[in-house]
């Protein structure tokens, strides 16, 4: 592989990884608070369609991204209200949210099919952004840098900040957190809203950057890969960054090897890799019993404050 090809490959990998990274980072925080929201795909689609619609009307992708974050947050709040306030089952509510997102986005998007928009360019000046080698660092749009910054921010938040500590406490032992006086429901609302915003931004990365258009089910199931990624990374932000790029490599390597006329392994096996690897990670972290790498203890359990 020559240098040009290697760098081009990395650029494509980063593109493919960024949206799942964003959505997974949001879901990581949600799960750390003890909530399992399976509606990632639905929220991504809501973000994708509204982000695209707003961008095609205003011509401003940044506005589109912000709107995508807001609308997906609203969708997430439906989930939060049902599961947190009304203590509905999280699995069923998450699935319903996905069905809702698919339906709503197709309906909203009808009027925007066939539109095109201008794609966001790189942040840095052309000298850096188009440099044959340095573009690997400087050749990205603002969302890519944002996604990496958010990894750092979430890592710091969970590990170092007081609020992050409370969030983890709520996820590990909701009843103790409640008895010390923290608002379990409040914390989880905030986490679910954050998860929605990140999923919305991730979804809009498809409709605004990777394939700047709207088509039904544009994200084609990548919300589920994001869910796998959270588990694969064992709920650790920096590992999630690595995991996202690993998943990106898996998704992209097939295309690059095939384009070179090489078939390494059956493409179906490669496509199943993220999921197989995730199951393996699940088994491994259980075997190692390492604290902190386990699923949050209260994951998916409804919390009913007892009187």
């Amino acid at each position: 592989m020559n240098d040009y090809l290697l760098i081009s490959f990395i650029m494509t990998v980063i593109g493919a990884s960024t949206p799942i990274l964003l959505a997974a980072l949001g879901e990581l925080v949600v799960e750390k608070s003890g909530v399992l929201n399976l509606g990632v795909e639905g929220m991504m689609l809501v973000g994708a369609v509204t982000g695209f619609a707003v961008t095609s009307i205003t011509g401003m992708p940044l506005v589109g991204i912000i709107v995508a974050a807001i609308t997906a947050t609203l969708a997430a709040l439906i989930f939060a209200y049902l599961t947190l306030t009304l203590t509905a089952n999280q699995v069923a509510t998450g699935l319903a949210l996905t069905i809702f997102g698919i339906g709503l986005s197709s309906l909203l998007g009808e009027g925007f099919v066939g539109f095109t928009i201008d794609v966001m360019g790189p942040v840095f000046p052309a000298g850096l952004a188009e440099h044959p080698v340095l573009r690997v660092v400087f050749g990205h749009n603002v969302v890519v840098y944002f996604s990496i910054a958010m990894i750092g921010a979430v890592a710091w938040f969970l590990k170092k900040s007081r609020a992050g500590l409370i969030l983890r406490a709520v996820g590990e032992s909701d009843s103790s957190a409640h008895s010390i006086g923290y608002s379990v429901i409040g914390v989880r609302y905030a986490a679910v809203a954050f998860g929605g915003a990140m999923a919305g931004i991730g979804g809009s990365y498809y409709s605004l950057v990777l394939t700047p258009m709207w088509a039904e089910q544009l994200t084609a199931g990548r919300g589920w890969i994001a869910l796998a990624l959270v588990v694969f990374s064992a709920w650790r932000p920096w590992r999630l960054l690595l995991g996202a790029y690993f998943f990106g490599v898996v998704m992209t390597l097939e295309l690059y090897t095939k384009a070179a006329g090489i078939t390494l392994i059956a493409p179906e096996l490669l496509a199943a890799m993220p999921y197989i690897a995730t199951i393996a990670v699940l088994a491994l972290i259980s075997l190692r019993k390492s604290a902190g790498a386990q699923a949050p203890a209260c994951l998916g359990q409804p919390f009913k404050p007892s009187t």
Partner: protein
Amino acid sequence: MLLELEARKEPSRSMLYLTPVIAVLLTMVFGAVIFTLLGYNGLAAVREIFITPAIDIGRWPDLGIKAAPLILIATGLSIGFRANVWNIGAEGQYIFGALAGTGVALLTWDMEGVWILPLMCLAGIVGGMLYAAIPALLKIKLEVNEILSSLMMTYVAVQLLYYLMRGPWMDPEGFNFPQTRLFSDSQLMPEIGDTFVHIGVPLAFIIALIAWFTMSKTVFGFQVRVVGAAPHAARYGGFNKNRTVLLSMLAGGGLAGLAGVFEAAGPFGQMVPQFPTGYGFTAIIVAFLGRLHPIGIMLAGVILAISYVGGEIAQTTLGLPNAAAGLFQAMMLFFLLATDILVKYRLRFGSAAPGGAK
């Protein structure tokens, strides 16, 4: 005026049965309003989606065919859900079971005999069980969260299907189209009389009834309910929790696998890459809408089938977009989940009431 929730001493039986009806009615009302605001004829949309397919006897066979796999899978899932075992990978078990049955069909494609179809069904049940056994054993041995593992397994099954369709199992006379050969007459589910309804449809309803009997009248059913409702009591009672987890997962996987064979050997008549249509996920909704009770599940399966078939009717008669049906289904579940709280709580008006404040 203040609305308050007051905890009930016991879950309300009447609300348990009433809330699904409330959810469906709320969906109709909200659906009519939303689609009117969107510029469609909202009332007509509700009529075409929910009423027309239900009152037109000519549509009933369609409803049965669409509802059968949902009912079968949801019945299996409900057993696990009652034991607090969250198998959400029924879609994968459905696919894997269907593949096992298809494997038998491809091995016997040049044979004839009444034994072939039952063997395919058996293979489907075993296939579904084996596929469910993986997350079950991971949970029992390693305490791996079965929600996550069974979900991941679904996507592995999808890729396995794609691999088989594009490679080893492709129809040798099919011009490289990724699909198997057509099943032979010995491998197809017989159709009832002159209708196009295959025998899997009544079988699905009968199996749901058997499950009801099992859950309410046998020791296994009792164990499942106790393990789910009161794990500690179960331990005192000498019930083996792991055994219950395994059995309830296997029941779910087996029924999903059987549903897979019914679908493949029934409406599909072959295996194709488009086989997974999300029945395994929709069945989760059916299980909840049906209150994890076989009779409820039958009704819920039919209601979901109505919304699918009705969605198509609304498309042809009103030009309603295809997405509308999905939106109605999601709303229905949202309302059901929202009204669920009425089972355990009572709505009160006013504020200063004893026991209500919190």
